[in-house]
């Protein structure tokens, strides 16, 4: 029996990355979803299309542009310069930026749908009761959109766990920093260590199944409670 303790660091790193990414995604995605749901601007669908781009683009396109954007010639290099570095590639922070962009549509779309589903009426009622827009957002819109937030968070988390191409291209495979689960599996397959690859890949399979099943059950339940 070989030693499996080396399987743990990539798992832990992946969970950390997915957690931080999900938090950032909720903070960034909620205002975007709100604006997309409420705005009357004609060009809002263009913004929605930009948000949805990662659904269609291969990870190599994102990875390639990110590698340049995070590097010394791009904005990432400028930000890294503030902290004495020269590139955001090969860092945990760089992976968070990449993951946020990559998983954005999975969070924005469900939240936007949820905001749109209850229409103008509840907010108008809140306004006649003299709730400020800010107050109405927190005490009316957010609770009503709760299923959307849960679905968005679960999908954003799961999609980040399942990320591979972008991380491979900007990560640099540094243990504990950028060597995530999917990259570890790739390495095990490359080096013919199929037992380890099997354990991690099998775990991912079960994880993905549980996530998808629970989102479906959740959705069914909210549909039922609404009707």
């Amino acid at each position, binding site marked *: 029996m070989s030693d499996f303790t080396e399987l743990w660091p990539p798992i832990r790193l992946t969970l950390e990355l997915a957690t931080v990414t999900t938090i950032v995604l909720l903070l960034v995605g909620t205002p975007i979803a709100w604006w997309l749901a409420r705005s009357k601007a004609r060009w809002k669908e263009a913004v929605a299309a930009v948000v949805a781009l990662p659904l269609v683009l291969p990870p190599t396109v994102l990875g390639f542009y990110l*590698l340049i954007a995070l590097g*010394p010639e791009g904005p990432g290099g400028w930000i890294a310069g503030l902290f004495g570095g020269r*590139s955001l590639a*090969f860092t945990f922070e760089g992976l968070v930026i990449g993951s946020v962009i990559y998983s954005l549509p999975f969070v924005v779309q469900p939240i936007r749908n949820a905001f749109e589903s209850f229409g103008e009426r509840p907010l108008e009622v809140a306004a006649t009761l003299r709730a400020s827009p800010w107050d109405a957002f927190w005490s009316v819109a957010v609770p009503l959109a709760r299923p959307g937030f849960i679905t968005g968070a679960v999908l954003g988390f799961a999609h980040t766990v399942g990320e591979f191409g972008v991380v491979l291209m900007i990560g640099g*495979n540094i243990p504990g920093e950028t060597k995530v689960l999917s990259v570890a599996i790739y390495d095990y*397959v*490359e080096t013919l260590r199929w037992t380890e690859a099997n354990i991690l890949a099998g775990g991912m399979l079960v994880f993905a199944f549980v996530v998808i099943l629970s989102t479906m059950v959740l959705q069914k339940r909210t549909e039922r409670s609404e009707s």
Partner: protein
Amino acid sequence: MLISLYLLRSSNWILLSVGAVLAAIASSACHAEVVRVAVAANFTEAAKEIGAQFEVQSGHAVVFSFGSTGQIYAQITQGAPFDVFLAADQVRPKRAVQDGYAVPDTRFTYATGRIALFSQDSEMVKGERTLERSPFAKLAIANPVTAPYGSAAIETMKALGVYKALEDKIVQGGNIAQAYQFVATGNAELGFVALSQVAQHHAGSRWLVPESFHSVIAQDTVLLNRGANNNAARAFMTFLKGPAARAVKEKFGYGAGDSP
């Protein structure tokens, strides 16, 4: 009317040219066959050039698939349709024979690789003391566990006595192509790349690592079971040993391996 006339004429042309090509193929080699070759990524450019010359000379056709040695091997074990395997190491071709995926006694070293310390910055790399002196944040290498070019880089740093000091600055590309990518995009100031990647252009600065600093990067080829009865596959492997292929290898910075 005019358009349909035009279409009619152009479709005639297409038929004519298809016929001409078929006739040419039929006459050039009555026994023309197709050989499918899986090639390790670092040998991509050299393989394309060797393949083009081989096609002209033999009349056979070559179809290349490029990938990392480990990926290709994994695919071969699952029945991938390749006739010849050009690996980046000796381990996988040996194993292919052992595990019964390749024809015994067909394995040989088709090339030996060299590594170079390379930077986009024309002032950065100055000989073997570069790593002791230059200030830099990241040094790119290929994954030493999967790529011989990566383990050669580690051996070189150990030989220079700088490995311990540099360990935290190392970033790994999945293969040697990616290590080069990290340097080319400036995300790493310098890196150990394959000589073949920088042999054809002259920008930046480099130090060709002497072969005494690391174990030989021997790249082996082997005839796979699928290609056992394919004349084109055997012809390609013979061509790979010959003088024409040798010239291409030298041009790209490879040693000739077992070629006479």
